[in-house]
């Protein structure tokens, strides 16, 4: 009796240990069951993939890491009969040639200039891409004006001789531009004063740029024929990316414009460029262009593919941006107009910020494609990373069976790191910009 009463008043003072969940609903076994073997088809697919991984991964690791050679000064290090063991990737070759892969034939004593260029590029990219960075407006000025000017002076040596004749022509055409803008403003009945200020600003920026470039900074001039390797790859990609976005936006707006000439010009440009492969543009620029130009006029051999790539990327970018513009509901345009905004204001403050956000994946996709397409310049004899590797591959000092594969593996790694980085960054930005649409 007593015990029963005691029992009824019994309260456990500490919590009883929970039983572990059944092993088939939690833990690795359950995860595998749910994710890998949830149906006969999935089981089959899992087994097939596992087999493929088994076939691919171990030999790859063996080749790239276990049997790889890391030190050595010439081919004997990477040959099975002299090294005394089976030889996989010959990283010693990449280490020996890394300066050539990075700078090409850039003079050894001047390579600090390229290093500064890399640092300036990293600063500019970081400043613009890090969303919480301070003063990103200054960052934009830096990246789109100061950085290209400094880089040009650093890499080429600056000291472009323009001559007095050029400056007087420049002054006259600058004045003409300001007058023309003022006249246009008068005809369109907008503020003449602000039009003139804009004109003066443009002339001043161009003038300062040319002035900086023509100063003798005491740097040894380095012709572009000596540039090469990663320097050229990054340069082509950067120029393509930096030019393609603004030009692409302008082309997309042009294509949707109500002005027939502007619209037709944009359509023709976009459709023409999209209709030809990049490689024909490059061959046209590097092989055919010199035949069309008069004998004493030359365009720099590196500048030609740069321009070609930039134009090509702009056309693709224009179509991506147009996709975003078309996805905007008409109400957004009407709303902006009803607020009394004019066309530039409507585009800059209402339409483009939303439209560009929609097409971020497309934009980054174009950038990634462009970054990899830069390797095509190697076909027209520009020493980018791929070409540098190809010409090092046949160096008799390093002739060994695995040299070629090692070189290409290095190129693959380089391109993968950059493209994967871009892809991850765009995912992050998308997630952040889409925060307002999450509920």
């Amino acid at each position, binding site marked *: 009796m007593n015990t029963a009463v005691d029992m009824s008043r019994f309260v456990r003072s500490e919590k009883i240990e929970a039983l572990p969940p059944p092993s088939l609903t939690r833990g690795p076994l359950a995860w595998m069951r749910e994710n890998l073997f949830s149906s006969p088809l999935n089981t089959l697919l899992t087994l097939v993939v596992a087999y493929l991984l088994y076939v691919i991964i171990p030999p790859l690791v063996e080749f790239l890491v276990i049997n790889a050679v890391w030190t050595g000064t010439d*081919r004997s290090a990477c*040959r*099975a*009969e002299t090294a005394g063991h089976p030889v996989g990737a010959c990283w010693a070759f990449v280490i*020996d*040639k890394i*300066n*050539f892969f990075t*700078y*090409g*034939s*850039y003079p*050894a004593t001047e390579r600090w200039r390229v290093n500064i260029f890399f640092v300036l590029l990293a600063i500019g990219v970081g400043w613009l891409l890090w969303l919480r960075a301070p003063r990103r407006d200054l960052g934009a000025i830096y990246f789109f004006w100061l950085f290209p000017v400094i880089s040009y002076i650093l890499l080429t040596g600056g000291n472009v001789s323009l001559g007095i004749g050029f400056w007087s022509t420049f002054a006259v055409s600058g004045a003409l531009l300001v007058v023309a803008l003022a006249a246009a403003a008068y005809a369109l009945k907008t503020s003449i004063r602000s039009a003139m200020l804009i004109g003066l600003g443009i002339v001043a920026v161009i003038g300062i740029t040319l002035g900086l470039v023509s100063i003798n900074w005491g740097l040894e001039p380095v*012709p572009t*024929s*000596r540039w*090469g390797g990663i320097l050229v790859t990054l340069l082509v990609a950067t120029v393509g990316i930096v030019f393609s976005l603004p030009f692409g936006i302008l082309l997309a707006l042009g294509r949707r414009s109500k002005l027939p000439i502007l619209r037709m010009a944009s359509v023709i440009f976009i459709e023409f460029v999209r209709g030809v492969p990049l490689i024909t543009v490059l*061959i046209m620029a*590097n*092989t*055919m262009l*010199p*035949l*069309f*130009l*008069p*004998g*004493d006029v*030359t365009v720099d*051999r590196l500048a030609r593919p740069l321009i070609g790539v930039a134009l090509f990327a702009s056309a693709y970018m224009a179509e991506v941006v147009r996709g975003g513009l078309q996805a905007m509901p008409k109400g957004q345009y009407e709303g902006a107009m009803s607020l009394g905004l004019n066309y530039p204001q409507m585009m800059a403050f209402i339409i483009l910020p939303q439209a560009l956000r929609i097409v971020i994946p497309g934009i980054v996709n174009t950038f990634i494609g462009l970054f990899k397409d830069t390797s095509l310049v190697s*076909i*027209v*004899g520009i*020493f980018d990373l791929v*070409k*540098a590797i*190809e*010409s*090092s591959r*046949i*160096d*008799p*000092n390093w*002739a*060994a*069976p695995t*040299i*070629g594969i090692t070189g290409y593996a290095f190129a693959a790694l380089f391109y993968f790191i950059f493209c994967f980085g871009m892809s991850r960054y765009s995912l992050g930005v998308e997630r952040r910009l889409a925060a307002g649409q999450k509920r």
Partner: protein
Amino acid sequence: MKKAIVSIAFGLTASLLAAGSASAQATLASVKQKGYLTCGSNTGLAGFGLPDAQGNWTGLDVDFCRAMSAAIFDDPTKIRFIPLSAKDRFTALQSGEVDVLARNSTVTMSRDTQLGLDFPAINYFDGQGFMVRKKLGVSSAKELNGASICTQQGTTTELNLADYFRANNMKYEVVAFATSDETFKAYDAGRCDAFTTDASGLYSERLRASNPDDHIVLPEIISKEPLAVAVRHGDNQWGDIVRWTHNAMLDAEELGVTKANVDQMKGSDNPEIKRLLGTEGKFGEAVGLPNDWAYRIIKHVGNYGESFERNVGEGSKLKIKRGLNAQWTKGGLQYGLPVR
């Protein structure tokens, strides 16, 4: 309308041609004025034109440009190398983008007569050859009856091969691949008995084999590939400079003048050496160069034999025998024309 377009096109072409020939006449003057020579080079061919780990160009063709730069500027470094692919090499020369093209280009009649080019100096006599494994026990291409042969698709190599075997009434089996890399890999892996490409290429490919000493290059050369330095047609002075740069290097070898002893040789009593090094006569002036032009070449670059050994011969990894490129006195084809 169509007529108008055609006439405009013709007008443009005509004016371009006029501009082209005007600039062609004065290559030496424009090179001197620029202060450097632009030299079209290979984008990478072992022994002939290849940037090293520091990015400096080396090779037999590169040495030729250096010799020209030495003759003109007394400095072998006043050159800009423009790497050119096989496709754009001749247009780059025609358009004036490069002053001279030293890029292992085979002279053929059509190239010489139809492209508006001249080939004043053949600096390497190449030709198609065969490589086989030693253990095959073959010492001549004539013994290759019934062999399987690895070659690159769609090249003249494949056609030469067919001609050679048909002419000698032998059977063979072609194993063709798209790239030279694949072709050699297949040979190295034992897919075929013999590998064929230009002889100079055989030596550099052999280095890449998994066991280079197992392979030999057969002595037969089955095609003619005279690799020459090219210039634009019409500027004869410039062509002369190219021709005599090559001959000076050959003469120097024949006379025993080397990079090391050239200063000493300047005091030689041999009239041929005196004329070559410019201590007698005024041979340089006639081509717009100073009279010690050949001295400068030997001093900075060396004679032909030195350049050959350093880049492709025994002094290099390639170890190509002189063969056809030996001096005429030693049974080769390199015959230096006399300076007099």
